[in-house]
């Protein structure tokens, strides 16, 4: 279950781990991405862009669940990063989420890979 913050409000059940792999700032996402938790991931991408890190890899391999809110975020993040002169890579070795990307055709719009690019 979700934890609660000091004011009693439920905390998003979403974990973000930020690392740097080669040229990419990698955001590994654990937990569930839905319309409640997606704001946390949106803020993380914003922060990276603000820091000038515009080559970003969002790693959905450890993600338990992702719905259309997460897919909407990926499309928005791709555009914002491209506008900033960078690029978004979606790392997804998770068959359920991969199926979602394929089903919606986003596998052809987004740069989806099995691993973070090494270059």
């Amino acid at each position, binding site marked *: 279950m979700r934890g609660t913050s000091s004011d009693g409000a*439920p905390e998003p*059940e979403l974990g973000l781990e930020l690392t740097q792999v080669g040229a990419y700032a990698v955001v590994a996402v654990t937990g*569930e991405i*839905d*319309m*409640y938790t*997606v*704001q946390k991931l*949106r803020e993380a991408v*914003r922060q990276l862009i603000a820091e000038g890190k515009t080559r970003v890899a969002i790693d959905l391999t450890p993600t338990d*669940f992702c*719905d*259309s*809110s997460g*897919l*909407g*975020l990926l*499309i*928005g993040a791709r555009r*914002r990063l491209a506008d900033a002169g960078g690029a978004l890579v979606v790392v997804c070795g998770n068959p*359920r989420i991969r199926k*979602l990307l394929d*089903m*919606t*055709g986003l596998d052809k719009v987004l740069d989806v890979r099995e691993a973070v690019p090494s270059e």
Partner: protein
Amino acid sequence: MSASKHDQRGEPAAVRFAFTPAAAYVRAARLVAADVASHAGVATGLLDEVRQAVGEACTRAILRHRDCGLDDLVRVEFSIGDRFIAKITDNAQDLRADSEGDHASSPHRNEARSNDHEAIEEDTLSEEITLIVLGGLVEDLVVTGPDREHGTTVTMSWPLPGRSPSADH
């Protein structure tokens, strides 16, 4: 919860609830859906699909209420008969059918996040994607409405092993 009313397919609602259109409740709705489906006997391999689909339909309903500045409850109903049926109903009427155009210019529209253009833009994308996901995910999917007086209802069903498939459509 109630079992007094029958749905359009003639099955009594086994579980019925409603929630305020807030993102925090989508998870609860999809977990209840998977649990009720499991108890109904939906195959284990389909439970993820039920969970995802009900979550998508609830997300869509919340976004539709948010677009119209509605605080009305989103209604969810599960019925168990020849098939497991999930119905998610919103109250967001057809804005284009409103000749006054009051809703479209409502001061409540996206009021809470009027300065977060990225979030609003991504929500709009998400609302469109929900139907794409539902269409790809659920074999038996019917979306009715909206019209001038009612919102939309997303009705989905999944087979129950050993039951007659006569309830199909």
